[in-house]
């Protein structure tokens, strides 16, 4: 169990440190480096502890239950292969962190860099250690996102932003393909556990969906590992700080693609399609990357294309898939990570010390920085495959794999030749790097005077180069057992015999190596001047500019197509959109109802309904009048609308719904007050609108009238049809039966709101809170129409005085009413559970009470006496409701379960008390806060505008 927990710790620690790193002060370079470095050391210690458990093909699995019902558990699994990969991630991570401490300038915000680097280490660990293939994809995408953040670290630079976006789009889309592949894989294998999938190999390769899975899978792997034709993102990602390039874009993240190729080889590999696609693309990338690398003038550009080429090599080996090729692939992953990380760091040092990365300007640096030069030359030797260095060994194994293995197809007959040619180019660009940068005459036009960097900045490079040498000279002693452990996890227990030796005798691979190196020297030295002074990149590559193709595609998909769709599909203006919506609803209703017969008996009108009919005669007239007058006579329309609302309210009373009536009445008051306040900022409109009576406008109006008539009559028919059919059993019956027993209240409507369906209410008050805040935010930057800004002050003052005198008696009355309104609100609240009332009604009542105070006196007078903090009311309301809901978890019940009982309070008597009441108090508090916030925000506008208007006047007077 200890090992399982250590495994979880291995993934979690970097994330925790990342969160910590993000909180440190911006200039804390040393603290950041210590934190990150210690994290890596902790991870290394954990890995060392875990090693004995992963040897001999064993693995540890730790499962943490999560969503077991859909097969999604947090399973972590480590075997020899992921262990070796983890050592790379953590070890190189440690060196990169040390290097970054000296590379980053004091002006750079380092917490962001270290936090992202640590988060990347966590994501990469998760990816390597996931025992569940869905979780693997999640971590996979996480690495893409962190990579995006790191490439865009210097976000003020255009190239950094572009490169970051490009890499994210390419790798994340690949990740989506991978996810679909994983889902299908899981469905075929019957489990999303990695072990089960790996065991289901024959079942998968014989499945009819195998080609689909394979294509999607390699799309994911190839985009991540920058394989042709998706390689273009990697050179553009070089806009990242060099530590990031060394860590993510050469040593670890780009290897994730080849990692899954090797990991899933038992499940997906071994078929001819696998070989053709993976080896074919790998070989193409190998050659293409090597050729282009030779012609790049930018140091990091050269290294980026070299990385692409080496990744192609590993991919090709994964495609060949023989046990020997797989061992070679694992070996080369390690070797490449080591020498390429050191080369990137060396390139960073050169850039840091000279101020340029352009090989046309760099020259003769061996004289001024001999140590760095020596280290870089050795590392380039490893990259070229020079004997006694680690690159030589794995490259030779690669040659052997292409040479020995033959299944009779055309591709593998070609393979050795392609391999040698690519090897030659790789020797050529390595040579170019060494010769141009370190030898020749001293450079003349460097931005800075170069000298050796601090010792600790060189140290990571030195360590890595030492590993290159050690592995190159004593391969079996240094890496033999680890490689064996790792290979056993990939290939299986029957590992073929292989020996890591420098000298195998004169064998075909050695001859191939020698040919490649001598050919490479010729390729570079003969047309040297041409290459050194020629254009950046080859002519072929400029023709096949994939990055430009990508931009074009992006432009097409994100700008041109949406614009086209907008032009073709969009309606012009809100009116036509609303009309389309109404017509669609009409059509939808007609489509659903067209098959039903109309067998509704003609209703009879009794004499007792005369009053009700008269009531609605008034109500209907009001509604039609409001519709008629809303254009020019806004105030009249408001009054008429209020009339219709009151009739609606009376209807609720009539039809045994007192709760609705109370709420409707109160909301009606609040709405009217709100609209009245709003009308203040809506300039009067009384002149005729030009073109309002021409034929087009008239026909438009008649068309809308027809639509409105259709809607109205449709609703009438629908309502009538429902009302005259006998009701069936309703859910409401259940509520009626259980409201008292389960909810402890006799007012069923309130019990439904605060108990049975409390979650809906919770959502609803949240909406109310959002609306309140939105209104507040909108009004903070409010600029009223110029026509509605106040008239000159003297005139206004006179008017105000007149108004005050006129309103004196009512305002005193309103102030007196304040206390009774508070009492009424409390009364409505406490009786809510058993009698009509409740949190909503109480909240609106109190809000109206407050509003009356604003109406009675001016704003300043009120606010000097009453402190209203609507936002706090809202916040506490929402908090109380959520806390009451969450409280039921403590007792083991679901969210928002209520408990009810009657409390015997002296004097007052029995009072219904339920936790639902606390919830209702939250509702009350929030409703009060939201409504007061909105009303006050609008009412306050007069305060905000007045000083400004005065300021304009005074400035006019003085000028």
């Amino acid at each position, binding site marked *: 169990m200890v090992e399982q927990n250590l495994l979880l710790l291995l993934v979690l620690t970097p994330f925790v440190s990342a969160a910590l790193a993000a909180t440190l002060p911006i200039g804390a370079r040393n603290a950041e480096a210590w934190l990150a470095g210690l994290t890596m050391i902790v991870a290394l210690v954990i890995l060392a502890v875990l090693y004995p458990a992963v040897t001999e093909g064993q693995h540890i699995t730790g499962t943490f239950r999560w969503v077991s019902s859909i097969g999604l558990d947090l399973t972590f699994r480590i075997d020899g292969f992921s262990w070796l990969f983890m050592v790379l991630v953590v070890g190189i991570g440690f060196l990169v962190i040390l290097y970054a401490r000296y590379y980053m300038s004091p002006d750079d915000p380092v917490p962001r860099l270290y936090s992202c680097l640590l988060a990347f280490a966590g994501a990469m660990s998760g990816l390597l250690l996931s025992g569940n293939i869905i979780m693997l994809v999640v971590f996979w995408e996480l690495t893409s996102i962190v990579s995006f953040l790191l490439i865009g670290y210097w976000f003020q630079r255009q190239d950094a932003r572009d490169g970051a976006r490009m890499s994210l789009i390419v790798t994340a889309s690949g990740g989506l393909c991978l996810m679909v592949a994983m889902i299908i894989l899981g469905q075929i294998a019957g489990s999303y556990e990695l072990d089960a999938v790996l065991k289901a190999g024959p079942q998968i390769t014989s499945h009819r969906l195998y080609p689909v899975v394979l294509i999607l899978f390699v799309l994911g792997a190839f985009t991540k590992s920058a394989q042709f034709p998706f390689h273009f993102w990697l050179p553009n990602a070089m806009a990242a700080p060099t530590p990031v390039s060394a860590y993510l874009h050469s040593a670890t993240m780009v290897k994730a693609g080849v990692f899954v190729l090797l990991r899933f080889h038992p499940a997906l590999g071994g078929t001819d399609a696998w070989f053709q696609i993976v080896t074919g693309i790998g070989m193409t990338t190998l050659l293409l990357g090597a050729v282009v690398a030779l012609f790049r003038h930018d140091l990091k550009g050269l290294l980026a294309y070299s990385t692409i080429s080496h990744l192609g090599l590993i991919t090709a080996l994964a495609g060949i898939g023989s046990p020997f090729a797989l061992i070679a692939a694992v070996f080369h992953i390690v070797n490449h990570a080591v020498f390429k990380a050191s080369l990137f760091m060396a390139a960073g040092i050169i850039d840091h010390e000279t101020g340029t990365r352009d090989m046309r300007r760099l020259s003769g640096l061996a004289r001024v920085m001999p140590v760095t030069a020596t280290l870089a030359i050795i590392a380039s030797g490893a990259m070229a495959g020079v004997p006694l260095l680690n690159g030589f060994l794995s490259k030779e194994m690669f040659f052997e794999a292409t040479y020995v293995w033959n299944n009779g197809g055309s591709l593998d007959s070609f393979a050795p030749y392609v391999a040698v040619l690519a090897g030659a180019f790789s020797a050529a660009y390595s040579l170019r790097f060494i010769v141009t940068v370190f030898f020749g005459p001293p450079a003349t036009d460097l931005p800075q005077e170069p000298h050796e960097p601090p010792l600790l900045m060189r140290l990571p490079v030195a360590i890595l180069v030492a590993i290159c040498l050690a592995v190159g000279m004593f391969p079996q002693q240094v890496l033999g057992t680890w490689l064996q452990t790792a290979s056993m996890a990939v290939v299986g227990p029957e590992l073929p015999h292989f020996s890591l030796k420098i000298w195998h005798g004169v064998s075909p691979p050695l001859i191939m190596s020698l040919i490649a190196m001598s050919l490479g020297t010729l390729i570079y030295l003969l047309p040297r001047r041409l290459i050194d002074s020629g254009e950046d990149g080859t002519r072929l590559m400029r023709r096949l500019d994939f990055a430009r193709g990508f931009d074009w595609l992006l432009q097409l998909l994100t700008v041109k197509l949406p614009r086209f769709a907008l032009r073709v599909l969009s309606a012009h203006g809100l*009116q036509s959109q609303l009309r389309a919506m*109404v017509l669609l609803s009409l059509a939808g209703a007609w489509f659903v109802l067209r098959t039903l017969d109309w067998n509704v008996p003609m209703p009879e009108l009794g004499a007792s309904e005369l009053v009700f009919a008269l009531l609605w005669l008034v109500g209907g007239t009001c*509604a039609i009048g409001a519709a008629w007058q809303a254009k020019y006579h806004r105030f009249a329309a408001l009054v008429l609308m209020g009339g219709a609302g009151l009739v609606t309210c009376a209807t609720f009373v009539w039809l*045994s719904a007192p709760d609705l009536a109370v709420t409707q009445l109160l909301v009606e008051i609040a709405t009217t007050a709100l609209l009245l306040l709003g009308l203040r900022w809506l300039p009067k409109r009384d002149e005729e609108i030009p073109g309002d009576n021409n034929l087009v406008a008239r026909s438009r109006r008649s068309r809308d009238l027809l639509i409105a*008539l259709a809607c109205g009559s449709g609703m009438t028919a629908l309502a009538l049809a429902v009302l005259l059919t006998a*009701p069936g059993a309703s859910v409401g019956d259940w509520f009626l039966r259980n409201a008292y027993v389960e909810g402890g209240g*006799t*007012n069923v*409507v309130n019990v439904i709101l605060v108990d049975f369906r409390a979650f809906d209410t919770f959502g609803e008050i949240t909406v109310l809170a959002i*609306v309140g805040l939105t209104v507040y935010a909108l009004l903070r930057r409010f600029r009223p129409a110029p026509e509605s800004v106040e008239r000159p002050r003297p005139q206004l003052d006179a008017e105000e005085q007149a108004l005050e005198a006129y309103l004196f008696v009512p305002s005193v009355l309103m102030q007196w009413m304040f206390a009774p309104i508070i009492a009424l609100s409390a009364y409505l609240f406490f009786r809510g559970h058993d009698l009509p009332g409740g949190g909503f009604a109480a909240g609106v009542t109190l809000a109206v009470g407050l509003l009356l105070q604003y109406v009675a006196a001016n704003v300043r007078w009120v606010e000097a006496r009453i402190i209203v903090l609507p936002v706090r009311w809202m916040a506490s309301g929402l908090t109380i409701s959520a806390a009451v809901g969450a409280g039921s978890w403590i007792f083991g019940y679901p969210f928002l379960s209520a408990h009810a009982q009657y409390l015997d309070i002296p004097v007052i008597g029995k009072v219904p008390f339920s936790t639902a009441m606390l919830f209702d108090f939250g509702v009350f508090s929030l409703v009060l806060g939201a409504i007061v916030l909105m009303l006050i925000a609008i009412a306050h506008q007069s305060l905000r505008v007045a000083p400004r208007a005065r300021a304009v006047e005074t400035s006019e007077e003085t000028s």
Partner: protein
Amino acid sequence: MELILALAIGILVGSGVWLLLRPRSYQVIIGLCLLAYGVNLFIFAMGRLYVGAAPIMPKGGFVDPTAYADPLPQALVLTAIVISFATTALFLVLMIAARGATGTDHVDGKERHS
């Protein structure tokens, strides 16, 4: 009773829709309010009409559901009333802000060019 309420719903909805399709923002606001009345009444009517039914149950025990108004549509409408108040408030603020920013009360922020 049923016929009157049905007609009332129809009138409210018809006036609401007519105003909804008008070009002036204030018309649309009034239209939304009228539409809300109509729709609330309609939802309420789905529980059928009970004149003079007791709204509150006696304490304790089981009750005969047919003697009471259906509480479910009422709970729904209660929610709807509050939400429609919120939308009205939001729309009102948008309206006055748009009037200040664009200088017109046309819903599109500019007068029709025709």
